[in-house]
């Protein structure tokens, strides 16, 4: 399953860091952050609850880039 979330991130490199962090989160099959459109598209692994996974994604993203925001 794929879902897209609006995000807020200031710099292109921070967007790349967020993408890496999201990809490494458990339950995430793949993640793409588009800095231009300020969107994060997350593909969830089978049988994962997007809500719980996204909480973990947000936490991991905050670790690499404190200023970022994901609107769940």
């Amino acid at each position, binding site marked *: 399953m794929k879902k897209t979330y609006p995000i807020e991130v*200031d710099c*292109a*490199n921070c967007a*790349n860091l967020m993408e890496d962090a999201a990809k490494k989160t458990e339950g995430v099959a793949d993640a793409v952050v588009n*800095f*231009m459109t300020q*969107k994060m598209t997350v593909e969830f692994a089978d049988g994962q609850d997007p809500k719980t996974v996204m909480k973990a994604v947000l936490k991991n993203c905050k*670790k690499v880039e*404190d200023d970022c925001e994901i609107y769940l």
Partner: protein
Amino acid sequence: MTKKQKKMLYRILAAAVLFLAAKLIPLPAPVSAALYFAAYLTVGCDILRKAWKGICNRQVFDENFLMAVATVGAIALALYERSGDYSEAVAVMLFYQIGELFQSYAVGKSRRSITALMDIRPDYANIERDGKLEQVDPDDVAVGTVITVQPGEKVPIDGVVEDGVSTLNTAALTGESLPRDVSAGDEIISGCINMTGVLKVHTTKAFGESTVSKILELMENSSSHKSRSESFISRFAKVYTPAVCYSALALAILPPLALTVSGADADWGTWVYRALTFLVISCPCALVISIPLSFFAGLGGAGKEGVLIKGSNYLEALSQTKTVVFDKTGTLTQGVFEVSAVHHSPMAQEKLLEYAALAECASSHPISKSLQKAAGGALDRSRVTDIQEHSGRGVTAVVDGVTVAAGNGKLMEELGVAWHECHSVGTIVHIAVNGEYAGHIVISDVEKPHSRDAIAALKAAGVTKTVMLTGDIQKVADYVARDLGVDEVRAELLPADKVARVEELLKAEPEGAKLAFVGDGINDAPVLSRADIGIAMGAMGSDAAIEAADVVLMDDDPMKIAKAIKISRKCIRIVHENIVFSLGVKLLCLLLVALGFANMWMGIFADVGVMVLAVLNAIRALRVHDL
């Protein structure tokens, strides 16, 4: 400016006032020290907090950490030396934040200018219920529903106009500024803006399958394909920051130790100061910010011109294109064929055309379309049975009980029919009725008005070889190639041959040069995916092409190919400029600092200055309209 940026601006202004007061007004030492500290904390508290969080999260080596260590170190040094001069630490933090603010403002502004231009997502669709218009989510509109599009609104879903006359602005989709007139019966694609009249549209696709959704999906996923330069920068930053931190540490400790051992004065203060300056300069912001930004700006600028590139790796590959291979029909020629003559026919011309058109009635090939057009009016398909397609040769069918074969010379030979060579330039459709030769129809394709200029523009843009592939006969192919200035021609190819030819050309490519294949997306998806870069033209509405291609040209003007290459060249040049410039200045300054020729003031100007210049340079990649 966003709220966050405004807040930052106020903090910078407040800190600047405090800083200047402490610096310029002669005050007793404790008072000025207090002012300096107030200024430092006002402007730098978030950096210190982020650096601390980074350490806690074991993401130690980032620019916040560098800045925090450098400024805290400078303050500690001033305390230790009792100089009472904290101005350097405060200034470093102040200028660093000014640079960051500028960077975030400039980036945000250019980002919004791109997204605004590419904002084609329709928010709603109007459905008429009980005489009233109701706004519904486009996702909920079933195929075959009639929707109403009012002037000023975006067409939300692909469809056919049922009622109404209007002009459409397709600029957001194609970059083409000329509006398009539509009336009942015309197909319209989603994402256009309805300008003048109310249109009733019978939808032919679901929202998810509509052009606008496909394009949005393509744009939103474009950042998943990273270029080599980008991955280089992220790998580089991972190694670089720890490396400079350890070098700074070495610079602070090793020379004084060496001096002590040799019996001279250790002079710890000077070396620690140099090490701190080293940290300030080494901040990799200019690189890590400007390189991805250049690519985003390049992709965005290209999108604005109607050239959708699926990722920065393709942008990079496009800039190295040396060979461009074209499919002829629909790419260099309009793909609109017209019957220009009928030769050697024993029966009436109309009758022959009708037979040919009926035999070809199941095919969507442009040639069949032109035959149907020449035969005039609607065809009764029930008169045709047993249609067999012979790929690359033609068709056979039974029309009104007689066997009709329509195709090229190869088909005639297969059927054992004696046929006449034709001397006209064009595509020749030979017809056999009941196994007897019944003459041939000459169909000629029209070159696109810009094709010749486009080939010349490609040459000017640095493409060394142009090749044209076509299923058409050698004579037509040679004629078109000579007329347009194409270097090489491979004619009379079956669809499967095209892949083989492209593979041959790929093998012949020198190291580092890339091959681009340009097609119109009909029947050439395998070739599009086989080439280094597949470019699909006029892809609006052709899903297969959008999926198989790496670069999608929104309209079918061949000039856009040269433009796409020029855009990619400009973007890659900017990336290289930024890499060389930022690293060059940094290395030079680091050397000067290590040797003691530069102080912290110079360090911060080198860091922030380089970043500002690199960001401004990166934004230049957006301006591609006049290329």
